[in-house]
């Protein structure tokens, strides 16, 4: 039995926006895998809920003419993981979606919730960060687009205005064409877990596969929000695909992340793992791009 005050079910984006305006304190519920937990643990007990679960227009993945991949925020992790457009163009996002929780959670949880929840440890954001994804936010005044990197304000807080709804996640063509990427989730067990550290890297190799033309890296759970590591990217950009480049890249990461110590584990451990994941994700991305690591 869940303690909520009211449930408003929106059938369209317009209706959802109207409901947002009419019920300023209400919470948006999509899959419910985060919201219901907070109601149960008392944090959001007695909340008003606006369900967007029924807005089918917000579900599914489309490849637009200009190469942009448009992901509906209500797309579940399991649909994302098996979607042919994602599988063909950005398989690394499917990999990330497949590592969320458990099959049951992947069936109900959505990519929109994964972002709007604002968690630094969510599985899809690091990959969306390295794909230079944008989020489309629709409100009374119409739609605006914001890079997902700027959408995160602080832990648990995203730049969603009181009347707004996340209506799309957009991955531009130039961000994935020619790139290969790899995502590593590091958790204390192999399923049903949240990242201790996560890392997504993608690379574009030169034609001869000997150099890194471009590289992007992002981390989860090592700061209040997911974060890119531009310094590390710069350290590897233009570099040869060698152990030395990998090492320079991985150690540069340490200056750009801010993990913490808590009961789960120590800052030193998180740093150690972040460095190790950075190296492994870069190596794997290079291998996927047809390159190899040389001494």
């Amino acid at each position, binding site marked *: 039995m*869940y303690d909520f005050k009211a449930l408003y079910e929106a059938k369209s984006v317009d209706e959802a926006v109207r409901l947002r305006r009419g019920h300023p304190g209400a919470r948006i519920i999509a899959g419910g895998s985060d919201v219901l937990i907070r109601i149960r643990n*008392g944090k959001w*007990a*007695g909340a008003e809920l606006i369900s967007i679960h029924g807005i089918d227009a917000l579900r599914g993945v489309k490849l637009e003419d200009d190469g942009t991949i448009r992901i509906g925020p209500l797309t579940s992790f399991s649909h994302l993981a098996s979607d042919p457009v994602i599988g063909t163009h950005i398989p690394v996002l499917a990999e990330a979606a497949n590592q969320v929780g458990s099959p049951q959670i992947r069936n109900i949880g959505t990519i929109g919730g994964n972002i709007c929840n604002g968690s630094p440890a969510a599985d899809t954001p690091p990959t969306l960060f390295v794909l230079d994804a944008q989020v489309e936010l629709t409100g009374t005044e119409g739609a605006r687009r914001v890079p997902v990197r700027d959408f995160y304000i602080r832990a648990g807080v995203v730049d969603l205005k009181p009347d707004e709804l996340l209506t799309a996640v957009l991955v531009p063509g130039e961000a994935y064409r020619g790139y290969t990427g790899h995502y590593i989730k590091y958790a204390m*067990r192999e*399923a*049903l877990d949240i990242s201790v550290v996560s890392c997504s890297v993608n690379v574009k190799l030169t034609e001869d596969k000997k150099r890194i033309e471009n590289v992007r890296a992002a981390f989860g759970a090592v700061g209040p929000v997911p974060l890119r590591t531009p310094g590390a990217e710069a350290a590897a950009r233009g570099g040869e695909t060698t152990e030395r480049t990998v090492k320079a890249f991985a150690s540069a990461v340490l200056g750009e992340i801010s993990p913490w*110590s808590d009961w789960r584990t*120590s800052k*030193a451990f998180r740093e150690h793992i972040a460095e190790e994941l950075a190296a492994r994700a870069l190596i794997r991305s290079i291998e996927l791009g047809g390159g190899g690591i040389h001494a």
Partner: protein
Amino acid sequence: MYVGKPVKRVDAFDKVTGRARFTDDLCDKSAYIARIVHSTIAHGKVVSFDLAEARKVKGVVKILTCFDLREKHYFGTPGHPYVLDPAQRDVEDRLVLTDTVRFWGDDIAAVVAENEVAAEQALRLIKVQYEEYPFVLDVQEAMKDGAPQLHAAFPNNILEHTGIREGDYAKAITEPGLIKVEGWYETPTMQHCHIENHICYAEMKQNRIHLVSSTQVPHVVRRVVGQALGIDWGRIRVVKPYIGGGFGNKQDILYEPLCAWLCMQVGGHLVKLDVPREETFVCNRVRHGFRGHIISWVRPDGTFAARKLEAFSDQGAYASHGHAICAVEMAAFRQTYPCENVEIDGWTVFTNKPVAGAMRGYGVPQIMWALESHTDEIAAALGQDPIAFRRRNLMPLGYYDMFGHRKLAADSYNQCLSKAMEAIGYDRKREMYRHQTGNIRRGTGAAVFWFDTGTWPFLLETSSCRMAMNQDGSMQLQLGETEIGQGADTVFSQMAADTVGVPIEKVHIVSAQDTDVAPFGTGAYGSRQTYSAGHSIRKTGLQLKQKILEKAEKLLQISSADLNIVDGEIIHIADGAVLMDLGTLVKEVQYSRSGSCHLTAESTAHITAAPYTLGCTVAEVEVDIALCKVRLLNIVNCHDAGVLINPALAEAQVHGGMSMGIGYGLSEKLVFDEKTGRPVNNNLLDYKLSTFMDHPSLRAEFVENREVTGPFGAKGLGEPPVASVAPAIGNAVYCATGVRLKKLPMDPPNLYQAFCEAGLICDERRVDA
């Protein structure tokens, strides 16, 4: 014959189709919902409550606090048989609600409401004022002079200290040429995590309390509820339906007394108390955390000169099973590797933490982590093969235990080790993994376990059984021993079918125990169900069979000595001819106009034996050193549990125990905030129970040496499968990396610390706390 065959579970179809009813399914929807107010300090006194806001919540029926408890009846919670000698009874230190808070989560008040939402809302609005005391979380800190004291009757928080002295330890260690091996070992507080949380409901009918509870020990619940409420035991009726696991947590009397008391405070109205998972972790029972110090003095030839153990068992805030767990640890240490000169001390100590009780293995998983890690260290110090060292020193065939009056009648250890090693290719892999470099390394390791089943001679061992014939030749079978998911009802049915001589489909087991009608039994614990119930099933079955054959003698005019019952029919032994089917016989007897008789039998078996059950685990791991991760590649357990009544269920039982052992070894620990004493990971996300993805394929092997004291050659199997898994994994990690883990679990943070200290990783960087 059914014994020895993989008969399908009698409850399989009901359970997989969802027809089986559990406590919550049975509770009427009109029930009031009870929720407990738990203390948010670790040690202190409740000064007052402010209930004004909470009482205003619509749907709240009544809020009861520790100050409403007019009569204070202290009670003990372990699901043990009653002990006639008051001096030998379990410590009685609990009240249904307490104003003295001894751990974060102690039960100080309760809300009774019309529905869950109202109960929850009221809970959040209750304000409590405390007088706070300092608290102590560490078992050795708690023993120090000046440490916060939990119970006035137990100075230095020591619930009990016992020692064992054999030979002359001090003299023995002066022998020249001895090698000393010493180590400290630690295991964490953990929880059972049975799938069905503890739940019970109570209502009053005809001035009696009717309780339905998810318990392993219904008859003990009846007695303890009587004690806790100060009312006659006969005024309490307890029903135990199907339960979703217990693993020892539900061998304690948990919230049945509180639920019954709340019911009485609201005029006998039906009250349901369903414990949320978060509270199950904190306010039910946990596995005792353990710290052990072992010193071994060994000769270069691989024999022991002297052995010493200091064991510290973390009892948490109340006595529950108390020192019994520590005593088992001490016995296991002493007997697994017998030695002439032994010095053993064990302390069970109160701390301001959740109450430790029974959990699958009852101390043996703790001591085996210490002992079997240590045994590998001895072998390494001597430069000997760890298995060869074990074989030389393990409890030998013919070993006699003076206290339990039992003799080891089979060479179980050697047989199990050989079988498990062969299953995993131990020798070949050990050789293969000898010289590894690089980040990914593999290893194999072995560990044995010692376990004594049942509770004799410490406690009463008794089992009662009732059988009644039906007109179609089928029979009802009733026992006080309980089905808790382990498959007891199925093996009971198999043993009954064989004893009486009926097809198993004709044995109708009454799964639920209702203390108003079920025969007396003490319930499921100590890996005793098959063994103990076997005795009463055999005794009762033979009585019933004799009665049937006597009736057959009259009806058929053939001496009962010449008759037998086979497959539900009376046969003539001489030629095997079928003379009459049981259905016809029962009808003739039951409706006889000259001497009608209901064919029933009932008896109690008083049991005065408790066999050892021994075995081992062999594991193979792959360690990713830089990622501080252990991946389990292969694992095999081998057990000597005597004759297997049902090999398929035995295998399932071993798989389940191995799975718990994997979590114990690699990931599970309940963590407490040092500043407040609050548990921080009391949920199934943060408490890392292992998942299927963390398991390799599990392999169970058996050697079947017939148990001479057992009615069907069988002995206990329920608990031991968990016991040797963690040390086998630890020894495999040592084989792979050369790093010895002393503290469980072998999870990434602990591996990180161990690998850093060993210089395998983080050579330049600090190791922070």
